[in-house]
């Protein structure tokens, strides 16, 4: 089966982020890779809405900025207390990462990746310092930065086609559906689809949005919200279904 010619596939920010981060950092990384592979197999070009593009940037910043913030807070705590002496690098790394994990329990994957890289650096680049705490804190900040740059690079290399949905007047109001940020995406996708006479397959992991697929379809018939599994079944149905 091939994608209908009047249809474009828009991927949500959670799918793009899953593709930009390594599997350890993002729980959706593997499924996101599969989504892109399916799209590629059908010679289609994955698209993103302008509103999703901005969301991707701010989600990357938020995810790693929060780690930088937690690291700085721990550094401030230490600076306001008595000087730390006799701490070795392992102890400094343990205490800092434990502190960051306590502050950000939801960010465990990213913290583990950063911890592993700092540990590797300490092991392979021996250095002499009297202040291991500060040294490790600086290393963590450097790794936070590296993760952001790497995610930005991955996002650029995905060659996503950007759909300027905001340049079209909105025809529907999804206020009653309580979709939060997704509301702007769906309203924009609907405006684009109506004006350009296209159908949009909107692929997402977002549970609240997937829970309202039918209600969205009733208001925005040209926007088909679907999960990655649904995308696969549409484009690559089981053999028995194909023959029937």
């Amino acid at each position: 089966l091939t994608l209908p010619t009047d249809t474009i596939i828009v991927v949500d920010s959670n799918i793009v982020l899953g593709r930009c981060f390594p599997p350890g950092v993002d729980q959706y990384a593997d499924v996101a890779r599969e989504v892109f592979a399916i799209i590629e197999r059908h010679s289609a070009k994955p698209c993103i809405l302008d509103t999703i593009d901005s969301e991707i940037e701010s989600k990357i910043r938020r995810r790693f900025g929060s780690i930088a913030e937690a690291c700085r807070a721990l550094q401030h705590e230490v600076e306001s207390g008595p000087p730390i002496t006799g701490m070795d690098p392992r102890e400094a790394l343990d205490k800092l990462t434990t502190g960051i994990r306590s502050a950000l329990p939801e960010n465990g994957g990213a913290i583990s990746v950063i911890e592993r890289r700092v540990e590797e650096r300490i092991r392979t680049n021996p250095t002499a310092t009297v202040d291991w705490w500060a040294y490790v804190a600086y290393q963590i900040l450097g790794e936070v930065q590296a993760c952001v740059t790497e995610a930005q690079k991955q996002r650029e290399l995905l060659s996503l086609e950007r759909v300027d949905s905001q340049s079209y007047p909105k025809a529907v109001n999804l206020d009653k559906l309580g979709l939060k940020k997704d509301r702007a995406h769906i309203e924009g996708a609907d405006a684009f689809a109506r004006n350009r006479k296209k159908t949009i397959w909107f692929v997402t992991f977002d549970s609240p949005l997937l829970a309202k697929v039918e209600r969205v379809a009733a208001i925005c018939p040209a926007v088909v919200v679907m999960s990655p599994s649904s995308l696969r079944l549409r484009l690559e149905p089981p053999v028995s279904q194909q023959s029937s």
Partner: protein
Amino acid sequence: MSSVLALPPAVPPFGPEAAAEHSSASPLSLRTPTANELTDKKKRRPTFAAIQRQVLDAHYEHIIKNRLGKIGLTLPYPAKAITSHLREMDSRDEDVVAQRDRLMSLTARLAVRTAGIEVEEPGEGPRRRDRVTRLQELWEVLEIAATRFQETRKTRVSSWQGFLGLFFHSTLDSELVCDLGPSYDWELTANGLVNDAEGKTLVRQIAGVNQETATRDEFLSSELSLKEIETCFRRYLVHTQVVALAADEVLDWREAFLLYVDLWSAASLAEFRLRRTIDSNRLDPAVLAQLNEGLRSSVLRLRRLLASQYSGPLSTLRFSSLDSRLARDVLLEAWAAD
């Protein structure tokens, strides 16, 4: 740690023991000045020293116009006083001065060789305008560009270390690490990638070989005419300057941000460029947001430019401490052999 940047300092640069130290020198742009910018109409053959002075003067003028100018506020002190303070602070540390002089010298030499300007210098008689001389000049351009990039990288590392210290010793928004930090990576990566990719292309075209790059001898034995050589070189210049301009725009926005934070939070001009804890209350959140937005947009433009023009080499890079094969080594590796 970003692979384009060196290890952070073992001792934090903003610790109490470093309170009296001044911050790193004002970073120089990477664009190569053109012949028009450097040629004194009255003097047909300038000296290298005169060109270096011109580059240095233009650098401080650029800071006032293009970096402080982006802030969009009336300067808190006269522009002349700021320039003179910056010059003084940039001259305090012998190592910093030596590094700056090396960069100025490389920039002047690069500009002279790129534009084919005649210079008045002992042992530097009038140059013959023939193929062999031009080929030697162009090989020298590639070598100087590689060395200059290495020197530039050192100044950015120093600036980056200062930025990390600034972040730790301020209450500035934590998402700044995700904007300012990667801007160093992208700026350096852009210059490293484009110099490497375009340099190799130029060498291949002029030497007429198919392999990834060629030796100096193969390059100098080119069978192309002088006109064909200049056509290849013009293409190299256009491509490298487009990326250098986009990368310099990132540098200017980042510097505008850092200059605003430093200069507008200083209690007096004397405090400007001294490492200290930043009092964020003196800063206007709206100005910080505007400068950060400018930086984000310039980084985005650079990212898109690299992804569209150099996706191959970009995809092989990994921004991580575990991989050191990035722009910092790649240029010297390419040109050092001869």
